[in-house]
């Protein structure tokens, strides 16, 4: 019996200076949905809001993909996000979404299997999702029609598969921001 992996949250710090609220433009403040008197806005938000248009568009899409009602179950979306984050090397995103998966499923088993690189211990549903997430995240993508067939064979319909494709792909995006523009540290 292997002991389960429990991950502590990490803190993210940017490599470039984030926008300071007193210097933020009205468009940046509006994008962050903050008033000039607000004190706490994360370094992540203040870094990406250097370009407020893409910040707003991406945030709306990200929230829809990860939190929209119905369709693919939340833990499956988190597993897609986690698989992508491991391939893309984004430790920060991996820990956030591993923890969320463990919370939603009330189990560390899947996270443990992935962090200890023992995917053979995954059940068929998690194995199919993880394998597709890994292969779609390669550049160029290495996913094949067999991956889609595996998802269908565990009972996923087209709408759920499209949800999963988006959850994996939006981390092809998020990982390329978080891991490239900054680094993760344990503690504060």
């Amino acid at each position, binding site marked *: 019996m292997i002991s389960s992996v429990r991950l502590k949250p990490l803190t993210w710090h940017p490599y470039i200076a984030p926008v300071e609220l007193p210097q933020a433009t009205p468009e940046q403040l509006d994008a962050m949905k903050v008033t000039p008197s607000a004190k706490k806005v994360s370094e992540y938000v203040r870094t990406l809001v*250097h370009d407020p248009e893409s910040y707003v568009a991406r945030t709306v899409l990200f929230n829809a993909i990860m939190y929209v009602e119905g369709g693919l179950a939340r833990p499956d979306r988190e597993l897609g996000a986690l698989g992508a984050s491991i391939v893309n090397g984004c430790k920060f995103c991996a820990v956030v979404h591993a923890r969320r998966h463990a919370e939603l499923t009330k189990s560390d088993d899947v996270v443990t299997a992935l962090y200890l690189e023992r995917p053979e211990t995954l059940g068929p549903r998690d194995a199919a999702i993880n394998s597709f997430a890994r292969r779609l995240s390669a550049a160029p993508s290495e996913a094949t029609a067999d991956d889609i067939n595996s998802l269908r064979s565990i009972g996923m319909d087209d709408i759920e598969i499209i949800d999963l494709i988006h959850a994996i792909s939006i981390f092809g995006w998020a990982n390329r921001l978080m891991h490239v*523009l900054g680094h993760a540290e344990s503690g504060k």
Partner: protein
Amino acid sequence: MIDAMDKAAGLSLNDARFSARRFRPEFVEGAELCRLSVLTPANDQGLARDLRVALARRMATLNADEALIAQYDAQLAELDPSRRLSALAEGATDLAEPLATIARHVDLVTLSPIKAEESDIARLAEAGLNNPQIVALSELIAFVNFQTRVAAGLRLMRAR
């Protein structure tokens, strides 16, 4: 209406995947608004549209995405690109600065984001990019890598 993602994935109006995609209007609309925010933003931060489309074309090639290569080639042709931007789009590495540094970064983050380090961002700053430009470039890179994966996934769903 057929949008850029449908086109990239090869979906027509009567395709089951076209309808399945519309189950999530927030994904369809959201992806299109994101595309516009990185390719034709109201404030381009000094990274002009022809540069952005040329870089997108370069990344489509790195992802071996024939449909997106064709889509970005058509967009670039409309902008009557300079020879240096055409070379950038086609994957050249012997470029003048700051294009050489930008191209190196785009290639690195597209192909192996896991290898990106703090010094890669410092290189962009040394090449003259300011912070808004570094962020805008990062979002463009990240978007194209999102777009090509959604398109690839939708294409794979065709085979039953």
